């Protein structure tokens, strides 16, 4: 059924269609309408689930961990400070190999207080062992939640996933969304049936203490699981396309990249704007393309290396910053392509922090700047875009 809904409702419908059994969540702007909608679904009986109104995000994740260990499919949603408060237990969820799915409405960190979009919160969680999907639109939010359960619950993965939707740009913007039929989703996504779970009367200790003799081996297995996840993302999406007719490009969505000389790499909702810019520039004859990092974890190493070997310049647009270094997507893309035989020229653009608009003009200026840098060489490897007081004008 086609409905018009916000990214937050798309999240809620995604969780409902996936038949989440335990939902534990805490309100935070701009995530709140996800859990409000889910509370409504549970209260009306549309969704047969237990809703735990926890007293913090840390408890939300801890409750999901416990419920998931007892064999229930769980879901939660959070944002910014809520996500970073969860940090400890995010690691717990992945170490315990629990395929929890969570929406993070990506929002800037305080201070200064800001309720608007940037990806600092999500990027700060990149080492927690979660799969991370950056979504471009509301349909992708809904679809990725359903796919994430299937990817993560597969025996050789068993890791949690974070579905990232940009604050307000997706969370509070209504778009037409195709809401699939429950029966079709049920056929695609069978009930959660873990090999091992807490069972009354069975003496098993979950999350035991291990010696240095075994700790690394367990971590090695986690690493293998993430590798397997990369394969499952692609396989599950293929299956998803057959059933629902939609696909998103696996780990790395490429747009007009085949003959591109300059490529912009970014993630999240800004990719939609960037696609318009690519279309407009192409109309003027510029050979530009866009590659959207859809999965930041597992990171699309192979896809990026294949792309890098064909282009002259890569601009990486980060909507976050790692202080003392550079944008995290930039450093990771650069690390991935470093050992390629033919390396493109690369530049990092930091833009859109704390809800600052990234306009089509800014993106086309970035593309032009990159094309020049690719020919004449890079002066400033990392540029902060559209900052008052800096000499360069981007708007």
């Amino acid at each position, binding site marked *: 059924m086609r409905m018009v809904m916000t990214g937050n409702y798309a999240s809620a419908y995604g969780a409902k269609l996936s038949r989440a059994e335990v939902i*534990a969540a805490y309100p935070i702007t701009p995530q709140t309408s996800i859990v409000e909608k889910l509370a409504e679904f549970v209260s009306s009986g549309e969704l047969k689930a*237990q809703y735990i109104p926890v007293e913090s995000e*840390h408890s939300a994740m801890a409750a999901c961990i416990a419920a998931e260990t*007892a064999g229930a499919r769980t879901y939660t949603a959070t944002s910014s400070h809520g996500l970073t408060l969860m940090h400890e237990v995010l690691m717990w969820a992945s170490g315990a190999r629990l395929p929890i799915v969570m929406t993070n409405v990506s929002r800037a960190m305080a201070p200064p207080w800001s309720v608007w979009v940037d990806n600092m919160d999500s990027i700060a969680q990149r080492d927690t062992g979660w799969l991370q999907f950056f979504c471009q639109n509301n349909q992708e939010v809904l679809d990725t939640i359903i796919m994430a359960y299937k990817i993560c619950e597969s025996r050789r993965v068993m890791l949690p996933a974070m579905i990232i939707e940009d604050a307000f740009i997706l969370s509070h913007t209504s778009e037409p969304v195709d809401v699939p039929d429950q029966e079709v989703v049920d056929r695609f996504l069978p009930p959660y049936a873990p090999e091992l779970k807490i069972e009354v009367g069975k003496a098993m200790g979950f*999350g035991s203490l291990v010696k240095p003799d075994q700790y690394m081996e367990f971590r090695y297995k986690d690493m293998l699981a993430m590798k397997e996840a990369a394969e499952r993302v692609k396989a599950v999406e293929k299956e998803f396309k057959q059933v629902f007719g939609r696909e998103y490009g696996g780990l790395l969505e490429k747009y007009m990249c085949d003959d591109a000389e300059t490529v912009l790499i970014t993630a999240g909702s800004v990719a939609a704007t960037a696609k318009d810019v690519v279309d407009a520039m192409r109309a003027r004859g510029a050979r530009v393309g866009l590659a959207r990092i859809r999965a930041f974890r597992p990171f699309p190493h192979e896809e990026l290396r294949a792309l890098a070997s064909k282009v002259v310049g890569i601009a990486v647009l980060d909507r976050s910053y790692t202080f003392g270094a550079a944008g995290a997507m930039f450093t990771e893309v650069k690390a991935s392509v470093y050992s390629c035989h033919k390396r493109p020229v690369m530049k990092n653009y930091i833009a859109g922090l704390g809800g600052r608009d990234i306009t089509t003009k800014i993106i086309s200026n970035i593309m032009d700047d990159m094309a020049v840098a690719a020919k004449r060489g890079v002066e400033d490897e990392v540029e902060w875009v559209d900052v008052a007081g800096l000499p360069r004008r981007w708007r």
Partner: protein
Amino acid sequence: MVKTTIPEEEFTYPGSTGCPGCGANLVMRYLLKGLGGRTVVSIPACCWAVMPGYWPSNCLKVPLLYTAFEATGAAISGLRAAFDVKGVEDVTIVGFAGDGGTVDIGLQAMSGAAERRTDAIYVMYDNEAYMNTGIQRSGSTPYGAWTTTTPVGPKHEFKKEPKKDIMAIMEAHGIPYAATVSVAHPEDFVKKAAKAKKIKGFRFIHALSPCPPGWRMNPTQTIEVARLAVETHYFPLYEIEEGKLRITRKGKGTPVSEFLKLQGRFSHLTEAEVDSIQKTIDEAWKRLLDREGPEA
């Protein structure tokens, strides 16, 4: 056959890595005797997070979910929700945490679970300091005690603040059952655990759990010191059921110095300081008696 005063069936195996004379081992042993085998226990960081032993060792005969230090209240809510959604009714959910994990870092999550009326029993085994990390003060360390972070130095320092009254805090949540228990009184302990099991909603059990290394005493004295805690009214045994308080063992009112002198952690106290502790205890005991009112 000999008749035992507490159920003979064990739900703990020997081979726990707790210290010799560990009170917390007894707390778990008695608790599970009262609750039986259809119990699921969640344990945060605390002595009991290491006492089951290194993987794959486990000294519990019931399922055990380890959780993060501050997360016990959330974990038991999650467990109950999962069993509810799966239609498993006949199961007792237990959160089993130390004093630091309860009155300090875990207070928020526990308070949340109590306020949500999570159907579970929360047990705090109170050894009155962060013992697993090596005897640091907690919000449950009593006035007068030495710990490694309240060292007794030239300025005659020690913990100057009284311990948090966790029973009052939990009672203020309006929970249906709260009780204190002691390892020196296993019969009373098992009875209260069994009673708590039958009640629905959030139940709280506060167990005094002597710690020979942390209390600076001989491990042979674990039971003796726990008994004296009750006799001196340092740790009275009572229960609060639907708001009604009942003292389950009156104790002789032995001078508190008898309790304190067994423990090296109090050995620096002057007579005046011991007297002030005695005064505090006497006042608290009187309040408890007044609260109980005339016996029915």
